[in-house]
């Protein structure tokens, strides 16, 4: 109730601010925005947000283009060099590195350093920083964790595990009951990257994981082998669904919905389709990935989506104002609430929507991930390495005996890619 009140107060405040600004001097000129939020809900949210900005700046001519999310990933290379917009969405960390290094993203450190906004966004500053400068602002992020069928856990008398031993004991009971512990679809590879992220961060810690993904640690090292040994325990138990290499992550959902598998290691975006498939909030719940090595601090995956200004933009001042608007506490509160993106706001002054998963995720990320926050396997590692490595992870999940060959291959790839 309290947070609902808070949200409505915030919404009211924003409306008032919008009205106030409308009568004051707004921006003039043009603003061209490219978005990759092509799914219906995020698209509507973004369009609503832009409409708010338009209302604030009635004299500004805003032109919005929404591009299919997958197509965007290849088109961005073209439109950043020729015909650049003033604002474009993208992702944090290594995924923005090629564009930063090619000089295609504008340095926006001025929005971050010595400003209130910079303080409020401090939690993602690391992910937005390359060469000591910031290259964009975040608008949303979401937690990863284990989503599980609470009703199945109750039926089998299980409770949320906290340690690796408990996790395996739970899993054994689930298997004995004729079900699989985890559903996963590795056809598009990245889901296996999620498992590796967590197993490696729990076995060797955040710093080692980052060393590995940035090419400073070797794949054939004993640490990595220990991670795979832990993973193999689950594989040998038969914890994962069969034939996962043929399914996408969405195609793996029915196994959990039908109750053939008890849990799913996924990002928070899995909640919406699970709900749509008919599972109620009493049936699904969430827990933080368990501790494996008690000596390392817990670290989490929480990918951040971002806005950037291309270096070739024509209206950089307007774009800066738009970035400030997007990153502001109120805007982040409402674009991320359950009715809109259903994710977490980055701005620390924002409030999190009253949604069981968002609240748990926010709690976990803000108070129980002392080790650090990673972006995700394919955002922390260079794209080329991520591709080779995730293919190896998929192969390992299907043919664990090939591990030595896979690791040797990854070492070779590493030597080539990180020059």
């Amino acid at each position: 109730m309290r947070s609902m009140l808070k949200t409505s107060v915030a919404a009211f405040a924003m409306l008032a601010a919008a009205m106030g600004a409308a009568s004051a001097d707004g921006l003039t000129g043009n603003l061209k925005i490219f978005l990759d939020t092509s799914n219906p809900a995020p698209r509507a949210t973004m369009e609503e947000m832009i409409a708010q900005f338009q209302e604030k700046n009635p004299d500004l001519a805003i032109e919005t283009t929404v591009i299919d999310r997958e197509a965007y990933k290849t088109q961005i290379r073209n439109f950043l060099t020729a015909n650049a917009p003033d604002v474009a969405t993208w992702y944090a960390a290594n995924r923005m590195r090629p564009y930063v290094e090619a000089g295609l993203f504008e340095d926006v450190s001025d929005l971050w350093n010595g400003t209130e906004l910079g303080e409020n966004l401090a939690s993602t500053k690391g992910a937005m920083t390359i060469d000591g400068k910031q290259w964009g602002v975040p608008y949303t992020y979401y937690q990863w964790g284990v989503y599980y069928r609470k009703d199945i856990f109750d039926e089998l008398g299980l409770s949320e595990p906290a340690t690796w031993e408990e996790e395996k004991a739970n899993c054994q009971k689930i298997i004995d009951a004729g079900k699989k512990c985890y559903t996963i679809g590795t056809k598009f590879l990245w889901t296996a990257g999620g498992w590796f992220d967590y197993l490696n961060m729990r076995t060797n810690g955040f710093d080692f994981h980052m060393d590995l993904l940035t090419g400073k640690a070797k794949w054939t090292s004993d640490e990595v082998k220990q991670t795979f040994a832990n993973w193999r325990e689950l594989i040998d138990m038969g914890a994962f669904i069969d034939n996962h290499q043929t399914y996408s992550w969405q195609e793996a959902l029915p196994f959990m919905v039908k109750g053939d598998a008890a849990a799913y290691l996924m990002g928070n975006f899995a909640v919406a389709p699970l709900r749509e498939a008919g599972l109620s909030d009493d049936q699904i719940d969430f827990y933080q990935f368990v501790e494996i090595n008690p000596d390392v601090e817990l670290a989490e995956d929480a990918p951040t989506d971002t806005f950037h200004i291309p270096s070739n933009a024509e209206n950089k001042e307007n774009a800066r104002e738009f970035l400030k608007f997007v990153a502001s506490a109120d805007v982040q509160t409402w674009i991320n609430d359950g009715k809109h993106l259903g994710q977490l706001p980055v701005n620390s002054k924002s409030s999190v929507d009253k949604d069981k998963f968002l609240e748990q995720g926010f709690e976990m990320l803000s108070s129980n991930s002392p080790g650090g926050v990673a972006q995700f396997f394919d955002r922390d590692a260079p794209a080329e390495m991520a591709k080779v490595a995730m293919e190896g992870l998929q192969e390992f999940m299907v043919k664990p005996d090939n591990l030595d060959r896979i690791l040797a291959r990854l070492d070779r790839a590493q030597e080539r890619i990180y020059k």
Partner: protein
Amino acid sequence: MAQASVTEARQSSWWHRNQQQLTPWLFLAPGILFFLFYVIFPIFQSFNLSLYEWDGLGQAEYVGLYNYEELYWDDAFYTSLKNNVIWLLLYLAAIPAGLFIALFLNQTVVGIRLYKSLFFFPFVISQVVVGLVFTWFYDPTFGILNVLLGAVGLPPMNVLGDENWVTVGIIVAGLWPQTAYCMILYLTGLNAVDPEQIEAGRLDGAKGWRMLWYIIVPQLRPATFIAFVVTIIGALRSFDLISVMTNGGPFGASRVLSFYMFEVALSEYGFRMGYGAAIAVVLFLIMLAFIAYFLWSMYKEEKAR
């Protein structure tokens, strides 16, 4: 004055003299220009690009034959090459299959047009749809294939998840429309079969297989040639089915050269333009060998006439 009229006369007469030769070239010019600009020129551009390392954004770095050297050590390249060969061989099954369906459909019974359209149907629908339908068919949990296998007492299999079966599985899907294509070629070919020769053959006591092999098939040579060409080219440029059905997986086992090129150069984790160009050059050379053979045999045929 006189000078001017002389040049005018000379100009117009030059045009008049050469009109017959020039007109076809004028009509051909746009096509030739487009062909040069969009086909020939990019081929040489690819050759050039394959000598560079370039991510599509920054400065291209000249690396000589390094990309080819890397190809030589790249396991994924050999997997793709091997799969290309498997495609080439198995895809040819579409030719006899198309021939037999055509023979079967080349009769006059009620409703034969409907049957013909039904057999031709898979060629009309998009490859993407074909891929999806076969993906559902092969689905190890919900698919009909394992139900059928179970009915005859065979163990279930995951065709698209097994690195030994996946390429064959995709080729079978590809054969469905390709067979229809060959069938149509043979149906038109059968229309041109000379009834007198069949009559003569029959008088000499030929029937069944002998009739087919010695009388019919030789007369279908032009159709066979075209079927051969389209099938070889189709096998070498296989891409969409792989993209739809497996995305190159599991762990890269179903890649072919064209898909691998797309992956390294243009897909989400790629952007190694030079390396992609090197793969494209290899694929081009393989295709060139076939195309040269086809052109040469076509030329020979024309000359013999």
